[in-house]
C-alpha cells in the first residue's frame, strides 16, 4: 500500500458528512435524551475520528463504523456527565434543532406515532432508528449494537408488532 492510501480525500469526507450527519445527529440526540449540543459534539468527534482513520480499513463498512464510534462516544459522554473536549458545549446554547424537527412533524397521527415510539424499550427504539433512519442493514446494526443479527431481527419485529398493537388500540 502506498503512503497516500492512508488519507481520505476531502470530498469523500464532505460527502460522508452530508450523507450521515442527519441520522447520526438524530441518533445521538435521542440517546442523549434531547441534548442537541451534546449530539453535535458527539457527531463532530465521530467525523474527526473518521478523518484520522485509515480509509482502507473501514471503507467497506463506513456506516456501521460511524454509528459504532458515535455510540461509544455518546456512552462515554453519558458516563462523564456530558463533559467534552469542546468548551463551546459547556455553554448552554439554545439549539434550534428540536424545534425544527418538531415543526416538520405536523400531522397529528405522526405526533401520535412519535409518542408511541417513545414508549418502546430503548433497545427497540435504537434498532428502529438505525434501520429506518440510518438505513443500516441487520448485519450493520448488529455490529453497532453488539447484538446478534437474529436478535436485531427480533427487536425490530417486536417494535413493529408493539406499534401495530398500540396503533390498533388508539
Amino acid at each position, binding site marked *: 500500500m502506498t503512503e497516500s492510501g492512508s488519507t481520505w480525500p*476531502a*470530498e469523500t*469526507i464532505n460527502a460522508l458528512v*452530508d*450523507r450521515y450527519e442527519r441520522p447520526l445527529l438524530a441518533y445521538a440526540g435521542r440517546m442523549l435524551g434531547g441534548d*442537541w449540543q451534546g449530539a453535535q459534539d458527539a457527531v463532530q468527534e465521530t467525523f474527526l475520528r473518521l478523518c484520522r482513520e485509515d480509509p482502507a480499513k473501514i471503507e467497506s463498512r463506513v456506516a456501521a463504523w460511524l454509528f459504532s464510534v458515535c455510540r461509544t462516544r455518546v456512552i462515554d459522554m453519558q458516563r462523564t456527565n456530558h463533559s467534552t473536549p469542546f468548551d463551546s458545549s459547556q455553554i448552554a446554547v439554545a439549539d434550534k434543532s428540536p424545534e425544527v424537527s418538531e415543526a416538520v412533524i405536523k400531522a397529528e397521527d405522526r405526533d401520535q406515532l412519535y409518542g408511541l415510539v417513545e414508549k418502546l424499550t430503548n433497545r427497540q427504539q435504537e434498532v428502529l432508528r438505525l434501520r*429506518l433512519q440510518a438505513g443500516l442493514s441487520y448485519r450493520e446494526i448488529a455490529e453497532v449494537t453488539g447484538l446478534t443479527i437474529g436478535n436485531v431481527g427480533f427487536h425490530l419485529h417486536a417494535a413493529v*408488532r408493539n406499534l401495530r398493537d398500540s396503533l390498533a388500540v388508539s
Partner: protein
Amino acid sequence: MSDSIWDDPTVTAYILGELSADETAAFEKRMEDNSSLAEVVAEARDVTNQLQIMYTEDASSTLDPTRRESITEGKFRNSPVVKRSSSWRIPLSLLATAAALLLLVGSSYLFPPATTVSVESVSPRSSDGRDSAQHPGTMHTAEEAADLKMSNMEEMDSSQPDMLYSSGVDLKNDVPTDKDPIAGFGMGASAPRNAGENKTSGRTPNSSANPLKPAAMIAEGEDDELVLSEAAIPPPAPMAKAKTKTSRGLAAKAKTLGETSSLRIQTPASVADVTSDQNRFENLTENVFKRVSDAPLSTFSIDVDTASYSKVREYLLRQRRLPPVDAVRIEELVNYFNYEYLPPKDNAEHPFAAKAEIIACPWNEDHRLARIALKGKTMQPKNRPLSNLVFLLDTSGSMNSPNKLPLVKAGMNMLLSQLGENDRVAIVVYAGSAGLVLDSTPATQTRKIENALNTLAAGGSTNGGQGIQLAYQTARDNFIDGGVNRVILCTDGDFNVGTTGTGSLVRMVEKEAAGNIYLSVLGFGMGNHNDSMLEQISGIGNGNYAFIDSQKEAQKVLVDQASGTLVTIAKDVKLQVEFNPRMVSAYRLIGYENRVLAKEDFNNDKKDAGEIGAGHAVTALYELIPAGVQGNAVPPKVDDLKYQSSNKLTDAANGGESLTLKLRYKQPDGETSQLVEFPVIDNETTFQDADHDARFAAAVASFGMQLRQSEHAGDWNMQNVIDIASDAKGEDMSGLRAEFVEMAEAAKKLKQ
C-alpha cells in the same frame, strides 16, 4: 387470530428486505397460501412505512457550520496534501468493493499496448498500485469478467454498430461545449482536483454523463442489499433480457473507452464553479435588455418545470444556506405557484387560455412589467385518458437515504391512489443491473404493486442507460392508443449513462417522445443531483421535471396536480413577442434563460419546445423600458447600418399596442402547429392596482433575481419581496405562498 403469525420476526425481515432471494421466494409462497400472513405483512408494512416517514422528517438537523469546518480543517491538518485520486464517491464507494474499480482494471486488459494512454488516464487508481495491491482476489475476478466481456463484445459488436458509433460521436460533439468539467466528479473539495480531472477527461468527457459512474457501474452493493433488489425481480425473462443488455452495454462502453483516448486532449482543463455540494447545475447567463430597434422579436419555449423551486427551498429552509446562483431558475420559481388564471372554456378552440397585461415594474419605477399567463385546460381525474405508466426507479446505493427511496415509494403510492382499474403500472429498477420488478399491472392491484415496491432496496450503482431502455421497451409493449404513455424516472440524478453517453440518451428520449412515449423526471434528495441533465432529458421527452423533497411536494406533484403531471394537453408550445418600438424601447425576458429560441425557430415545427399539462399555469415576465425613458439599463445604440436603412414603422405601430403576443403549439399527437396571436395594450396599471397574482409573481421573480445576484434586481431588497408576497398571498389554500414568505425571510437573514 393472527397473533401466532405475529410471533414470526421473518415478517419484518421480509418487509425490510433482509431476506435472501430464496427466503423471499419461500416467504411469498407462504403468503399466497396463507391470507392471514399476508394481512399481517400488510399491517406491519403500514407501520414501517409510517415509521419511515416519521424518521425521515425527524432527521433534519445538520452539524453547525463551524463544527463542520473543523472536520474539514482537522482533516487537512492531518494530511495537508491529499494525493489520492479524488474519484471517491460516497456512498457509492461504501457499497462498492474493489470490483467497482475493476471495470477500469478490466479495461486495461481490454486495451493493452495500443491504448495505454487512455488506460492511464482512465484509471489512475488502478495505476497507483494501491487497489490492485489491496484486492488481488477481486482483481482476478475482474480479469475473468473482462474476458467474459470480451467474448460478449465480439458477439455484440456487429449487432450494435450504431450504438458504438454514436458513443464516439457524442464525445466529439459534447466536448467543446462542456461547461462544467468538474461536474463529472461533482465534488466540492479543492485539493485533488487535478487528479480527478484527468480521470474525468479520460473516461467520459461528457459533462452531464457523470463520468464517475462508469467506474462504479459494476459495483457490488453490500451483499444483502444487492441480493434484495434482485430478489425483488420475479420474472426471469426480462432479467435475462436485461443481462444481455448489460454485457452489450459493457462492450459498448469498453469500446468507448478505447475511442476516448484520441479525444482526451480536447477536454477543457478549466475548472468551473464548484458548489460545496455535489449538485451539478448548468451555468445560466442572465438575459439582458435588448433594444427593440435591434431585436424586435423575443422567442422562447415555455417551461412548466418546478424543480428549481423545491431545490431552492431545500437550501433555504433545510440547509439554511443560500442556494448556488445556478440552482435558481426564475421561471421555475414563478411557475411553481398555482395562479388563479381562468382555464379555457370546455368548448374553446385552443387547449389553453392565454392572457397578457402590463403593470408598473415595482423594482424600477421608470419601467413596466409585462406578464404573460397561460393556463392549460383542466381535467377531472375521471376524464383522464387511460394511463400506461412505467416507473423507472433508481435503486442505486446513493438512493439509500431517508429522503430518497422511501420518499419515492411514498410518492408512488400516492400516485397509484389516483389511478383506476384500467390504468397500468410497471416498475423497472436500475442499479448494478437493470430489471423489470413489476411487469405492467392494472393500477388497482395495489397489493401486488405494493409488494413490488416494498421489496425494493437501495444498493449497487446506477446503470441508467440500460434501465431506461428496458423502461421504454415495457412502455411500448403495453402502449395504450390515445392514452397517457409515460416513463417516470425517479432518481437522485446519479444517472449513469455509461452505456450510451448523454448524446445517445437524449436521442433515445427524443425518438420515444416522437413515438408518444413521454418522459417525466422526479428528482429526489440533495447531494449529487445532476440537475442540468435531468432538466434536459425531461424537456426533450415532452415531460416535466419536478424535485420531490418532502411528502408535501409529492402530494402537490403526484396528487393535486396528477393530471398535469400525467396528461399533456399541448406540446411544443412556443411564444414569440413582437415589441412595438413606438411604445417600448428595450425589454428583458426574466428567466427562461435556457429556453430562449432563435426567432426562426418559432415557425419551425421541427424545433422541440415545452409542453403544458392539464391545468398547468405558465407565467412569463418581461421588464420593459418604455420608449423615451433613458437610463443605464438601455443598451447603447449601435451605429446605423451603411447599406440598409432602418426599419420604418408601420401604421399598426401607431395603434397604441405595446406588443403582440404570438403562440404556437401542437396538439399532443399532432405534427403541425397552430398559431394564436393577440395584441397587448398598456393600460397604465399601477403596481398597487395589479391583481394579487401579478404582484405575487413579481415578488417571486424579484426573489429569484436577488438570489441570482442579478444586476437587474433594481431597488428592491428581500424585505420588499416579503412585504408584497405577504400582502398578495390571496387565499393560499395550499399554504405554499406562506412558505414562500418564509423562504424570503430565510434568504434575507442569510444575505445579511
